[in-house]
């Protein structure tokens, strides 16, 4: 029996390895900076800013109206990786926000209070904002902008799964009820976009953006699948975060589609040549949660130094807005399909947070996962509240080791690095023992 579940790739002998390998990261970082530059200079060109969240961004629609997308979660994480998050958080706490409020929210409040000053540029205030319910904190966050700026803050309510695994599809009365609701809200959103932008809705521009998004989606699914390769062709936490930045910031744009075509090319090349990450791969891991940005590099090294490579990450599922589902728009029915896409992907994003145990149990075998790292963060109750229970449920279903650690993705004051390192070390001892036992058995 063929147990090789690695994705099949055609050898590409003509490509030059030095040009290809690492291109995704280099280009991703370049495009990301370019995007920040465009957002920052938007007001000079009279362009308007739409604040959206990574889960349920409706980026294609905003793109069609010529808005620059501002992604406040990404602004937040950038302050953390650049070690300035605490300043912003302090400012928000001084304004009245409690220590228990999500660090992303507070970093944004801090940034708004200092006129958009941010390490990546000057972020313009919103002309319009879209908040989905995929994370409830989004809604509370949007209410802050409403109060600060008195601009339209539109809610897009996406009903999620009512229970684990209950996913009625097309034709089912419940699905159709949800879809009609989302569809109606999309029309309402279009009306607001028209008012704020002063432009009429342009179906051709939407179709163009959707077509780029479709291309990105196909490639994104391929990127995720390619990490079934042994060795893994990228680290789903570190490289994966670079890719995620592009998924969100460039969604619906031609440079996004081009970028992901190139990423797939690079990763297929690596897969066909047996090239992995720069680190030894002794243990194939899945990551659940949001990375520890305040000590991003050291956090990653805690695992790579033991030969632990993240081949999958729930972050790449939900923080891509659920585009890991592979949903592609029907370009013949753009607004209908936009609504369905938002419903299907929004629901998937929620499922990969609230019912992550199911996805993990399914991916353990095809991805050859030995261990799962659950990273609960104080800020984020959406992702973290159920992790202890998910860990218990996964251990009942799959033969893997599992580690639960906690810190924060923003606030360095609650990151206890030494304690976390001890627990990670002990986790790898367990994985080594498992490996020895497996070796002895075979």
């Amino acid at each position, binding site marked *: 029996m063929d147990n090789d579940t690695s994705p099949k790739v055609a050898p590409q002998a003509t490509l030059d390895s030095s040009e290809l390998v690492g291109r995704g990261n280099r280009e991703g970082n370049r495009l990301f900076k370019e995007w920040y530059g465009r957002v920052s200079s938007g007001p000079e060109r009279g362009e308007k800013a739409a604040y959206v969240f990574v889960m349920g961004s409706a980026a294609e629609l905003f793109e069609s109206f010529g808005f620059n997308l501002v992604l406040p979660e990404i602004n937040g994480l950038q302050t953390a990786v650049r070690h300035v998050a605490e300043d912003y958080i302090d400012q928000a706490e001084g*304004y*009245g*926000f*409690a220590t*228990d*409020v*999500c660090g992303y*929210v507070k970093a944004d409040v801090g940034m708004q209070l200092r006129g958009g000053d941010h390490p990546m540029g000057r972020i313009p205030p919103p002309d319009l904002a879209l908040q989905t*319910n995929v*994370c*409830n*904190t989004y*809604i*509370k966050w*949007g*209410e802050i902008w*409403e*109060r600060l700026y008195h601009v339209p803050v539109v*809610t*897009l*309510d996406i*009903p*999620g*799964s*009512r*229970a*684990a695994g*209950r996913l009625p599809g097309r034709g089912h*009365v*419940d699905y159709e*009820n*949800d879809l*009609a*609701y989302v*569809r*109606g*809200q999309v029309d*309402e959103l279009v009306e607001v976009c028209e008012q704020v932008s002063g432009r009429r809705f342009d179906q051709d521009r939407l179709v163009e953006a959707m077509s780029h998004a479709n291309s990105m989606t196909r490639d994104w699914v391929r990127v995720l699948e390619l990490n079934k390769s042994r060795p893994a062709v990228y680290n789903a936490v570190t490289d994966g975060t670079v890719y995620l930045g592009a998924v969100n910031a460039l969604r619906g744009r031609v440079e996004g589609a081009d970028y992901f075509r190139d990423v797939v090319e690079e990763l297929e090349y690596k897969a066909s040549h047996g090239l992995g990450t720069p680190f030894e791969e002794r243990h194939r891991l899945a990551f659940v949660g949001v990375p520890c940005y305040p000590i991003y590099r050291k956090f990653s090294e805690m695992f790579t130094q033991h030969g632990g490579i993240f081949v999958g990450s729930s972050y790449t599922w939900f923080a891509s807005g659920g585009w890991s589902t592979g949903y592609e728009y029907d370009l013949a029915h753009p607004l209908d399909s936009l609504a369905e896409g938002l419903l299907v992907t929004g629901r998937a994003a*929620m499922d990969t947070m*609230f*019912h992550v*145990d199911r996805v993990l149990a399914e991916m353990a075998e095809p991805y050859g996962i030995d261990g799962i790292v659950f990273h*609960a963060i*104080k800020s*984020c*109750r*959406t992702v*973290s*509240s*159920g*992790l*202890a*229970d998910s860990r*218990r*449920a996964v251990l009942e279903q799959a033969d893997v080791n599992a580690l639960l650690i*906690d810190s924060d993705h923003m606030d360095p004051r609650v990151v206890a690095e030494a304690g976390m390192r001890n627990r990670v070390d002990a986790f790898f001892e367990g994985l080594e023992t498992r490996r020895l036992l497996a070796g002895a058995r075979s």
Partner: protein
Amino acid sequence: MGTHVLDDWGGLSLDELLRDCRDLVEDPDYPTVRRWREAGGKVVGHFEVYFPEEIVAAAGLLPVKIHGAPIEARQGDAHFGSNLCSIVKTSLELALSGRLELEMFVSHPICDTARNLAAVWGRNVPYPCEILYLPQNATSRHAATYLRGEYQRLQRGVEEIAGRTVNDDDLRRAIAVYNENRRLLRRLYEIKRETPWLLQVDEAYVLVALGGRIPREEHNLLLSAVIPMLEQRGTAPQDRMRIVFEGGFCEQPPLDLLTTIAQSSYVVDDDLLIGLRWLSEDVATDGDPLANLATAYLDHSSYSPVQHDDRKPKEEMLLRRIRESGAGAAIISAAKMCEPGLDEQVPYVRALEAEGIPYFVNEFEENMTSFDSLQIQLETFIENVLFAGAEV
């Protein structure tokens, strides 16, 4: 009406009745629910904040409001992280410890923690657990139609549990019972507002909370008897500050905390257990009952930090509550680690400052047991306010 779950209370004095109600509300073993089950009844538990109990009652089931409990979450703790409010842990504890047996559990997407609660609950019990997706886009033109469909979905699930279908007349009858209940609860709050010396905040609380664990027909009988007793209560008014308590929309402060507040002030309005009082007007009993319930939820309802509705900016709603109740100050509270509650404190405080209304900010936990420092702080706050008032 069907099963009675309260002991015969005829002939009891007002104080005895209030004491018995308090005992029942504080009992984490839900004796009234047990009695219902012993008589062969089935139970649907629903979490905070609002739930359309009429749909469950119409099927002959007992809807039970789950809002945590003053218990140690021995099993519940292990299923959650540490940075969470207490109510989700103690609510789960009620189920895992067998104190509260259910045929179905329904939660709502009120906050990030509660949405996880539904998933965790579902992984750990054998009966159906689900989320009722109440709309978060209340001003959408499509929200009412959507919500009607969502209620219909709930109804189908309830019918399966009940083993019978529910028709429009069943629903209308249930709505009528709940309308009567709403009328009585409104009267209770009128008494608090107009003659607060007749009804303390902790007493009103137990009278409201009991409704979440007994059939509403029985609750109506009880309230119909208690309200005239309250109206004739001989308590004399005292020179106390009139105050609004805000922050009890989900996790509930311990009763002793409310008693402590009552010792130094008159709480003339509050958002305690607001879900049980969410619909502010009668629901129409003619026409399409599910559509009527949906419209009432959206258009004739209260407010809370976990419902987004552009028509009801929370700070303006709070100011209105203060004005309409004639309060001179507010306690702005939140359950510990309740993110939406804590978020809301910021605009509340700013609005109160802008209006020059004195306020007192605090956090509570349902399981806290020491109130001495709260009492001192509150008394100092009230003295300061009265002193400042005297100076003016």
